[in-house]
């Protein structure tokens, strides 16, 4: 699955990415559904306003009404009138590791999802298609557990201090050296939570329109000017770059000091992979910098799991800031930033995470170290390699089967994130419920986290999924797909 053709121009491998258009009838019926729910939402708000119905959600108390409102009433109109109705499909408590199968706590609601009660029963061995566990290292047995337990006994659970003070342990430095070696960059530093390593310190930021909220927040935190280009659209990016170079800063038209392009390697809601060869070509052409968020791709793509840079056969030195997380592929937490030595030294001194946030918990660091060594093959086994291979096969197999069933699937052929399109708001709730009835746990996503006519189920595959597990899941998906009539695709695989 990882052969790389050593000819051709920019891309050294086929780049298959598809976003089938929403069928017009489905789009219209989706708006009808949202219209009905909005009208009933206004009706319910009217009943609550006149105390005909008890208001469950938090509002300002009578005595507080003269003060500045604490709760934006209209802003949670959707939450209280749409999301509440289907929120039993969200935030389900699990009571096991988020592995290939997961144990879920059963809960019921007697007031239409305003409150839940646990029945005390556990729904055991539910197939887990919702967790980010690409290489299956979220497990409570094997060498990872032993080493994490040993470090827990030796270092304790937390360092309770920042990296610049007492919280800098030898484990952190070991992980940093390992990350730098794994990525093939000069230096790496690990941050304790992903929000902080996003905070860029730049001047003009060109950000993909579907970048993760943490990137958006980090970009805003830096106070830089931000311009947004269309998702994965290189013409739009080049036009912004050209305008930025030609017109410079607004009003003064002085040239920008630095231009930073911020992209994600795999978009976790779209399942798409960034067109990295083209982005790097544009970056070199216009002499700007590149920040690559490999949160979902590190460990998940590339012949040896080194992420999208290796997937396209590019040089890591071409990416100025490599960012990623230990959460999704290594079963850990937190993340890292990799790059040139002076950049990392600067971040170590100035970054919010280094100054304010407590450093990573040592056992978690150990989990990431052991998992990363396993991926690199430094644990003397080929487990890591097998898992990467397994994930790649699972991805291709699952995508192909779903397409053959007639579902509309978004994204890249090689992306382990598989958005399965649902469209109508009621089908979001129904899909989650029907799949759980069949012992398959899926994550469903709707407006406003996605465009209003692109609600979806986001399936995340794992190397821990065996072919049997995938076949069971596919059978259930096929059944639910027929029941809910969500096989909208008009593309048929040419035999």
């Amino acid at each position: 699955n990882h052969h790389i053709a050593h000819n051709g121009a920019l891309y050294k491998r086929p780049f298959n990415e598809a976003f089938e258009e929403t069928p017009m009838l489905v789009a219209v019926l989706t708006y009808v559904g949202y219209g009905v729910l909005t009208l009933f939402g206004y009706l319910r708000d009217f009943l609550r306003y006149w105390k005909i119905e008890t208001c469950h959600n938090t509002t300002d108390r009578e005595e507080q009404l003269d003060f500045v409102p604490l709760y934006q009433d209209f802003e949670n109109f959707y939450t209280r009138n749409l999301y509440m109705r289907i929120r039993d499909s969200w935030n389900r408590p699990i009571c096991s590791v988020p592995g290939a199968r997961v144990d879920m706590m059963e809960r019921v609601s007697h007031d239409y999802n305003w409150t839940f009660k646990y029945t005390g029963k556990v729904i055991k061995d539910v197939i887990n298609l919702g967790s980010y566990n690409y290489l299956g290292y979220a497990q409570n047995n094997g060498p990872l557990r032993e080493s994490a337990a040993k470090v827990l006994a030796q270092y304790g659970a937390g360092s309770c201090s920042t990296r610049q003070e007492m919280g800098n342990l030898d484990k952190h430095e070991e992980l940093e050296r390992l990350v730098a070696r794994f990525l093939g960059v000069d230096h790496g530093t690990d941050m304790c939570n992903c929000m902080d390593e996003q905070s860029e310190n730049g001047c003009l930021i060109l950000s993909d329109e579907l970048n993760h909220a943490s990137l958006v927040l980090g970009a805003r935190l830096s106070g830089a000017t931000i311009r947004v280009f269309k998702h994965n659209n290189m013409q739009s990016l080049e036009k912004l770059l050209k305008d930025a170079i030609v017109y410079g800063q607004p009003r003064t038209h002085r040239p920008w000091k630095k231009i930073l392009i911020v992209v994600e390697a795999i978009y976790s809601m779209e399942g798409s992979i960034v067109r990295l060869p083209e982005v790097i070509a544009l970056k070199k052409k216009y002499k700007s910098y590149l920040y690559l968020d490999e949160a979902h791709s590190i460990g998940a793509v590339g012949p040896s799991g080194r992420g999208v840079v290796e997937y396209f056969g590019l040089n890591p030195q071409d990416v100025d800031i490599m960012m990623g997380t230990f959460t999704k592929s290594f079963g850990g937490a937190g993340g890292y930033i990799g790059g040139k030595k002076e950049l990392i030294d600067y971040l170590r001194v100035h970054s919010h995470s280094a100054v304010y946030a407590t450093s990573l918990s040592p056992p978690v660091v150990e989990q990431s170290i052991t998992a990363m060594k396993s991926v690199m093959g430094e644990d003397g086994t080929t487990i890591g390699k097998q898992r990467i291979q397994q994930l790649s096969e699972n991805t291709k197999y699952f995508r192909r089967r779903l397409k053959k069933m007639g579902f509309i699937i978004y994204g890249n052929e090689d992306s382990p994130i598989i958005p399965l399109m649902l469209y109508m708001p009621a089908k979001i709730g129904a899909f989650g419920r029907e799949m759980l009835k069949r012992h398959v746990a899926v994550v469903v996503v709707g407006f406003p986290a996605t465009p209003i006519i692109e609600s979806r189920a986001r399936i995340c595959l794992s190397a821990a999924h065996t072919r049997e597990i995938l076949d069971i899941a596919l059978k259930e998906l096929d059944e639910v797909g027929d029941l809910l009539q969500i096989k909208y695709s008009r593309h048929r695989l040419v035999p």
Partner: protein
Amino acid sequence: MNSRGIWLSYVLGIGLLHIVLLSIPFFSVPVAWTLTNVIHNLGMYVFLHAVKGTPFETPDQGKARLLTHWEQLDYGVQFTSSRKFFTISPIILYFLASFYTKYDSTHFILNTASLLSVLIPKLPQLHGVR
């Protein structure tokens, strides 16, 4: 407002509203047309020009909270295709209503006032004006 199918849904919605009004036995055709025009403009005024903010949380630190839907449309850029479409559609409805009410003066005044109530807030000069 420029995502796929929303304009078609909007036109179908107006058509459905008119058919429902036409089906009410004691409404004559002129009354049905004037009601279609007035109800449509009332709904457009409420949803596009009266309600402020967003019905869901946005990551823009509350910037949109004081803007109407019309002002938030396309990030405030004027003369976009959506804006043109939603400016023209009440005018077309007004022409139809005037024609089918045979330019009766009462209906004409009612329809004109209703049309102005949704056209005036759409003027670019009134963007952000309170």
